[in-house]
Each structure stands twice: as structure tokens, then as C-alpha cells.
């Protein structure tokens, strides 16, 4: 999986303006970096796009549902197959080193911090 941009994908750009699902996310931070987990059911690796542009992290995905021909919807909680969500990255993060994994419709992004920007414990000297 690549974290690099799909720079020219007009189809994706056009779809961004139409109705999209906002995937629910968990975001956690530890000393070395930030982890983002997003629920994107039905999205396979080939239809997932993680794009970093300056300080903007953009996640897009297209779900694929196997639907028999001529099917009529008896019930539909989910009415679009496009997922989209974006975040702003702060300066201490290293967007070039994002690691992205996709398993069973859950996207996990690991965004490391610059080593020199990791939190330091400040010792208080007795004076």
C-alpha cells in the first residue's frame, strides 16, 4: 500500500463533492506517534487512497458490494459507497513516514513523530 498521492484521479476528486460517508475513527497518541483507525467496510486495498498534501491528510475509499443483477432494495441503511474524511497534521509529525494497513475493512494509519520532537521528561532539580 502506498501513502503517496494518487495525484491525477479526477473521478475521485469529483466524487469528493457528492454525498460521502464519514468513516468513524479512533485516534490515539503515544510517545512515538499517532495512530488513526477508520472503519471502511467493503473497501479493498485497490480502492483506498491515502493522500497527504502539505498538512492535510485525506482518506478516500470506494466500497464494493456484490449485488445480484436486478436486485431491489428492501432496506438500506447505507446509501452511498464512497468514504471520505480528512485531518490536519501538526508539524511534529512525519507525513513521509506514514504506514498504512488495511484489514477486514479497518484502515490503520501510523504517523510517527520527528525523533527530536518526542516528549521529554523534564527533571526538576532541587535548588
Amino acid at each position: 500500500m502506498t501513502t503517496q498521492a494518487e495525484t491525477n484521479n479526477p473521478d475521485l476528486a469529483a466524487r469528493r463533492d457528492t454525498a460521502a460517508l464519514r468513516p468513524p475513527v479512533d485516534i490515539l497518541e503515544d510517545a512515538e506517534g499517532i495512530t488513526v483507525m477508520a472503519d471502511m467496510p467493503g473497501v479493498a486495498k485497490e480502492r483506498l487512497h491515502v493522500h497527504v498534501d502539505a498538512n492535510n491528510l485525506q482518506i478516500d475509499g470506494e466500497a464494493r458490494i456484490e449485488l445480484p443483477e436486478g436486485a431491489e432494495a428492501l432496506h438500506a441503511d447505507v446509501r452511498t459507497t464512497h468514504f471520505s474524511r480528512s485531518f490536519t497534521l501538526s508539524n511534529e509529525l512525519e507525513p513521509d513516514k506514514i504506514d498504512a494497513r488495511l484489514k477486514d475493512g479497518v484502515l490503520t494509519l501510523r504517523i510517527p513523530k520527528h525523533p527530536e520532537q518526542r516528549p521529554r521528561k523534564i527533571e526538576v532539580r532541587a535548588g
Partner: protein
Amino acid sequence: MFGTFTGLPGSLFDDLGRLQRELDDALGRWPTTAELRSPSVGSWPPLNIGATPERVDIYLFAPGLDPEALDISIQQNLLTIAGERRIERGDETRWYRTERYSGEFRRALTLPEDVDPDRVDASYRDGILQVTVHRRQSAQPRRISVS
């Protein structure tokens, strides 16, 4: 065969009507009648149901599950799907957002009456659980030729 639910029946007015009902439900404005087993609006996981004369397909949008731990059962035309997605959120890290559902779930669905409970298939791929229930042959439209 692939498709989406985007182009299926369900007009803007249906959506507005549904929105109105959901608002009414949420505000408790009107006494409403609901199916006894139907979950409250916004329950996890969301699901779609598609039907053809041959089969009924149920799609559960439930990523990150262990398919072995799913409990799927059918009694006549009542399909029950139960499972659990437990997300361990330890104290050692700082959590900024916890929007993803964690816990048990159970959805009970009343399917059309002509489904055959002996012919059910289930598969789990990319976080979607698809349950296919075939319908009885006798219920399918037949072409009658004139001799």
C-alpha cells in the same frame, strides 16, 4: 456482478419522509408503530437488504470482526445475526477520538416468507458480512407457454 445501492429505488421524497420519521422518533413527537425486533435508528452495524426472485442478500457493514465468532441463525424467515467487536482501549495511551463501535450486537430480521432456511450461505470480505438466503422455487415467477 457488482453494483451499488445508490441507483436503487428510493427517491428524494423517500429520504425526506425517512428523515421526518427519524426526527419524529427522536423527538418523541408522535406515537409511532415499530416492528418489535427492529433496532433503534443508528444501531451498529448498519445493514442493507437486496432481493431478487431467486434470493435475498443481507449485507452487514461490520469491519474488524472475527468471522469465527459470529452467530448466525435462521428460524423459518427470521434471521438473527449476533456477534461482538471488542476494541481494547488501554490507559497507557491518550485517546482523542473513540467513534468506532465497541461491544456486542444483535440484529434480527424478518425476511420474505418464501425463503428457504435450509439454503443459507454466508461470507465475510473486506469487513462486509454477506448472508445469502435462497427463495423457494415455487415462489419464483414461471413462464407458462401456450401450446
